[in-house]
């Protein structure tokens, strides 16, 4: 019984209730305070965290309460290295995301911040739950706030159409996951994680369940043919919505893939299904990057770059998983995906914020109409460049470590696949430098540049905090890699038998 984890779960929930109730412009400070408190609590838990536990003691800060006899489900939460990493990502980014909106006037402010905190509650739940039904419930809990954020504060003329599509898409995916989980549950003793791992299923059943559950993750990630909702939603959501979606929410699917899908259904990964997923993921890598190159809308460009990066993470996981089910224990893919998930979260939030800052200056998202901002905004130019380099995966930035391990793990599986997936590094430098070059250098509208100005205090604070993480993790990636090592070993070993 850990009161620390209980506090971590309930603080954002209670906080969102308070923020909802307090109809005052000052409620944004309350929201920020709660988010920072949550961040410090996470750091405190990290400082007491055992980085190299034995496999038996892989879970820390465990909570286990009987919840419902009716459905044989427990309120079971706990943290292992994987969860810890994702919690760090969530709780570092949330205060920054809240802070990043301080210059805006979204209207009904307290609702906006209340929804962000509610979303944080859902995310913490997803990353810590050890019970299948709880996982599903929190998975859905995150959907409602982001949908409302996108719908209420989104771009006026398009929002009804795209938010409906977004919601229906993800909801359908989740429903399939629910059916998959229920089916596993009817073959296991309860919804507990270990019971689900040991469910008695033959290969056909496993294959069907694999695709049902994978569908939910594929939509959330998104993987190649299921991505049609993504670019529109990222583009027309408010910036904070895009940050939450791409920075944190899609990591739920990476996490879910490792924690919930692969160990429950190892059989189909050995068969054709695993290879199909791998191929789809690699198609996504190239497809996303190529479309990003021809984009002129800055947010859309970042959306497609995100598609490309996520494809690489999935490909890495699948490559290692296929090798593992063949009998060669490989955890590099999982390691790389998690390190990259963390790095990508930081980078993509930074990129979206830079796009937002550019939008404020130029009043357009069309990168052809931007130019010359580096001259008047040197601080912005430098911070933007650091985040950009992180996203391109330059050595000594956070993006490099993850991408290197990922490509290495795909290389172990197939050299051709690694070569194709590796193009992401080339393509990403093409589209991002095109973006950066157009916006920062070249001909700009002088009247705009005169009034543009450099970063404001809030903007500087957010971007500078992000760049600290970009460089820090580029130089010292080892703690993160160690953190996820033991849980990944546990997961991949359980796939072998």
């Amino acid at each position, binding site marked *: 019984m850990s009161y620390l984890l209980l506090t971590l779960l309930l603080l954002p929930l209670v906080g969102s209730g308070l923020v909802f109730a307090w109809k005052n412009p000052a409620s944004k400070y309350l929201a920020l305070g709660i988010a920072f408190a949550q961040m410090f609590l996470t750091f405190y838990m990290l400082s007491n965290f055992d980085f190299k536990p034995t496999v038996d003691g892989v879970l820390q800060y465990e909570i286990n309460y009987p919840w419902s006899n009716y*459905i044989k489900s427990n309120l079971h939460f706990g943290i292992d290295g994987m969860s810890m990493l994702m919690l760090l990502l969530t709780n570092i980014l949330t205060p920054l995301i809240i802070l990043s909106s301080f210059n805006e006037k979204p*209207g009904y402010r307290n609702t906006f911040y209340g929804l962000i905190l509610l979303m944080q509650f859902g995310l913490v739940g997803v990353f810590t739950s050890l019970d299948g039904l709880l996982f599903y419930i929190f998975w859905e809990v995150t959907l*409602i706030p982001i949908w409302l954020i996108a719908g209420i504060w989104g771009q006026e003329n398009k929002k009804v159409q795209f938010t409906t599509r977004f919601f229906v898409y993800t*909801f359908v995916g989740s429903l399939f996951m629910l*059916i998959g989980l229920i089916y596993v549950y009817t073959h296991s003793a309860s919804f507990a994680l270990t019971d689900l791992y040991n469910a008695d299923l033959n290969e056909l059943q496993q294959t069907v369940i694999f695709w049902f559950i994978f569908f939910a993750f594929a939509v959330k990630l998104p993987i190649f043919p299921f991505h049609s909702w993504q670019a529109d939603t990222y583009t027309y959501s408010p910036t904070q919505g895009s940050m939450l979606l791409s920075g944190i929410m899609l990591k739920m699917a990476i996490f879910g893939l490792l924690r919930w899908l692969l160990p429950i259904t190892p059989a189909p990964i050995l068969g054709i299904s695993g290879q199909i997923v791998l191929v789809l993921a690699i198609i996504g890598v190239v497809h996303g990057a190529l479309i990003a190159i021809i984009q002129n809308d800055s947010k859309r460009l970042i959306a497609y770059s995100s598609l490309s990066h996520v494809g690489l993470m999935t490909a890495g996981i699948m490559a290692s998983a296929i090798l593992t089910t063949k009998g060669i224990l490989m955890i590099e893919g999982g390691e790389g995906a998690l390190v990259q998930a963390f790095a990508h979260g930081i980078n993509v939030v930074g990129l979206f914020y830079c796009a937002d800052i550019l939008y404020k200056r130029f009043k357009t998202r069309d990168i052809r109409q931007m130019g010359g901002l580096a001259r008047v905004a040197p601080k912005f130019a430098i911070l933007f460049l650091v985040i950009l380099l992180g996203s391109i995966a330059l050595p000594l930035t956070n993006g490099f470590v993850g991408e290197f391990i990922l490509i290495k793990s795909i290389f172990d599986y197939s050299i051709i696949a690694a070569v194709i997936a590796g193009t992401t590094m080339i393509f990403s430098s093409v589209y991002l430098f095109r973006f950066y070059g157009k916006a920062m250098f070249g001909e700009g509208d002088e009247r705009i540049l005169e009034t543009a100005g450099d970063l404001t205090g809030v903007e500087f604070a957010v971007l500078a905090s992000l760049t600290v993480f970009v460089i820090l993790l580029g130089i010292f990636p080892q703690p993160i890699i160690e953190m996820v090592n033991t849980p990944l070993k546990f997961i991949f070993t359980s796939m072998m038998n």
Partner: protein
Amino acid sequence: MSVLIIIFLTAVAALFAGVFEQGKFSRYIGILGLLIALYVSYLPEFSFFTQYQHMFEFGANAALFTKITIVITILLFFIAGFAFSNHRSHQSELYALMLFSLCGGVILFSFQNLVTLFLGIEILSIPLYVLAGSNKTDLRSNEASIKYFLMGAFATGFLLFGVALIYGSSGSFDLYKIHEFAVTNPKNLMFILGAVLMLVALAFKVSLAPFHMWSPDVYQGSPSLITAFMMSVVKISAFFAFFKLMTIGFLGITGEWINIIGVLIIITLFLANVMGLAQTNAKRMLAYSSVSHVGYLTLIFYGMNSLSSYNLAFYLFAYSLATVGVMMCLIWVEKLKRETSYNAFRGLAHTEPILAVTATVSLLSMAGIPLTAGFMGKFAIFAQAIESTPFLVLVAVLGSAISIAYYLRLIMAMFFPKESSFKTSEKVSLTYNIVAVFIIFALVAMGVFPDLFAKQFGL
């Protein structure tokens, strides 16, 4: 039995109270009587007359469903003061008729004999024919009344023919004797025909497609509070009768009717959800959604176990609460705007946040989003059925996937526009807000602590 008598006496008292003042007393008498009935249904004396001449049996299930319908009726009575405020006269009759209809429901929860089943269905339905047409100046209301009456008469015909065939083959009206006969003679053609005819009649009553054709028109035409009553209390009663008849009386010939039900489920889920998607009127959308919920519910016949009737109660209670939640919002909008298109709800969240949140939570519950009661209800039924019929569960899931789109439309109409189309001077009453908060609380509590409900209803 005592509960039935109390409700009946309340209804009579409410009827006569109309002499003194326009309906106000009747409402209070109704609420008071129902509260007493609810209290009595918790007493051990509820088991007084547990068996009455092989006509009634008041077991645990009867008690559970009686409690649920009484709670829903009380909620409806609370908001009825506002809903009926346009009816200048004859208000007390409306309350009395609703109570009489509820009596029919209680009879259906405890029938043990096909005669009682018939009586229960008629006592449930006949007041509704009048109630549906109670908005006398509205043509749609008149149409609803006529349509409901004609369809109800058809269904009664099928039912009686079915009963006659059952009696002719088994020689008894008693549910348990019929059960014994079905077990020993599973291939008796006359009996099977009777069972199928009764199935059709009850499918009419619970509006399973393709026997649902009356329900969108009737639900749309009736006064909104009556629609809420039909969607909740009447549906609970009719469905439980259906459930009990099929799972006790005709259990021995399950193989003969279960496939028919499977086909009906597929048609229902497909038709109702696609038609619901096509609607532009919120009330009509809710009518189709109500039909689709019968489709999900009917999956209860698959993978039956000892918890099935409890799962059924959970789902029906969750659905009924959600219906009351949406309908009370709709009644308020209808009163101000005199129409119920999606557009009429524009920006409701800005002027009446509590009402809009109630409707939203209710709609999310109907759609089966976690942390609401509707999710737990759907979960229980799907988990029960998935082993014996994965295909139908998949159909049901696709149905809910379609349904989410039309529920969202109403939520988006309330929340997404930046400005509200309501004047700020109009405010809902305190009673209304209390009921709204109760519904939010109940829906979330049932979704978060599903075991709480079990304790509440003595399971």
